[in-house]
């Protein structure tokens, strides 16, 4: 655990400083958690709802955090579990179905993504983003952990409960699919 994380955890365990500690945690992880959740639940409103649940879980359980894993891994694991539970509850989906399912957002047509007003990026980046959106749900999430967050496979395995070999294979498939999509388009 990094020193900064140790300090934050110590604050969160002290009833007089718990609010400051949580504030530090939110500041440090807010964007990372948002994008992680959004990769799973896809809609902004759903993401906001899951994020609220995640922070309540963290608030309730930080006192029992023993430092057996990195604080970030512990937080990402809570986030992953809350997101999956949310999707399963909302869609009445089994986990296996979610892992292989196609993206949920109907508006994710190539045209909608390319023409979105926020996307003032170069063409290649736009194409890659479209290609990522087209990946199956779990592959998309693994790509996010590995490429965006640059997590080692061991940490992703701890968060998702998937073997490192399976994660590596999934990431390689995702990278190949993105490459094929770019070449085709």
């Amino acid at each position, binding site marked *: 655990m990094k020193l900064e994380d140790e300090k934050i955890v110590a604050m969160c365990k002290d*009833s007089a400083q*718990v*609010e400051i500690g*949580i*504030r530090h945690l*939110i*500041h440090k992880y*807010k*964007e990372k958690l*948002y*994008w992680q959740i*959004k990769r799973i639940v*896809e*809609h*902004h409103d759903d993401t906001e709802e899951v*994020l*609220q649940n995640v*922070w*309540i879980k963290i*608030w*309730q*359980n930080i*006192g029992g955090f023993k430092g057996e894993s990195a604080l970030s891994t512990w937080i990402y694991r809570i986030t992953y579990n809350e997101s999956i539970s949310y999707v399963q509850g909302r869609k009445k989906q089994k986990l296996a179905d979610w892992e292989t399912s196609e993206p949920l957002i109907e508006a994710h047509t190539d045209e909608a*993504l390319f023409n*979105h007003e*926020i*996307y003032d990026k170069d063409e*290649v*980046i736009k194409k*890659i*983003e479209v290609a*990522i*959106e087209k990946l199956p749900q779990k592959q998309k999430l693994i790509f*996010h952990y*590995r*490429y*965006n967050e*640059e997590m*080692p496979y061991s940490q992703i395995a701890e968060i998702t409960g998937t073997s490192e070999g399976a994660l590596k294979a999934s990431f*390689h498939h995702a*990278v*190949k699919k*993105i*490459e094929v999509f*770019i070449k085709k388009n």
Partner: protein
Amino acid sequence: MNQELKNELSELQSPLAEMDKHYFANQSEVPMDYFSSMEDRFIQFIKENESPREAKQISIFDFKRITYSVAAVSAFAILGLGILIILRSGSDTQLSENEVKTFLEEEGDFLALENSTLVEPYRKLEKLSDNEIKDYLCEVEGMDCGQIN
């Protein structure tokens, strides 16, 4: 991009290996300045919805505990009773005095007959004197009488 990831992407001959690192995220739907006020909003939300979990109080009169205790005592009592029954049934294999007496009375004749056939020759020998035995051995069996004492 860290070197390990870069090497992995290079091995896959992916164009991502040659690009500058970009955080790929679908930013559609995200309101402007959404992240800037997040700390205040979420702290407020947490305060309104939940308080930190307090240490769990465990009462010795907890109903669940009492149920488990009663179940455990019952299990031990049943087990003990079972063992006692098995031990007692084992002691029944010992014969009472009456049973032994009955057995001897019923089987006595056979034993007496068996004993008589085995013991009779020896009883006859007891009636003979040493000299009679010595004479028998010398005359009938042809043994050297000088060596018999």
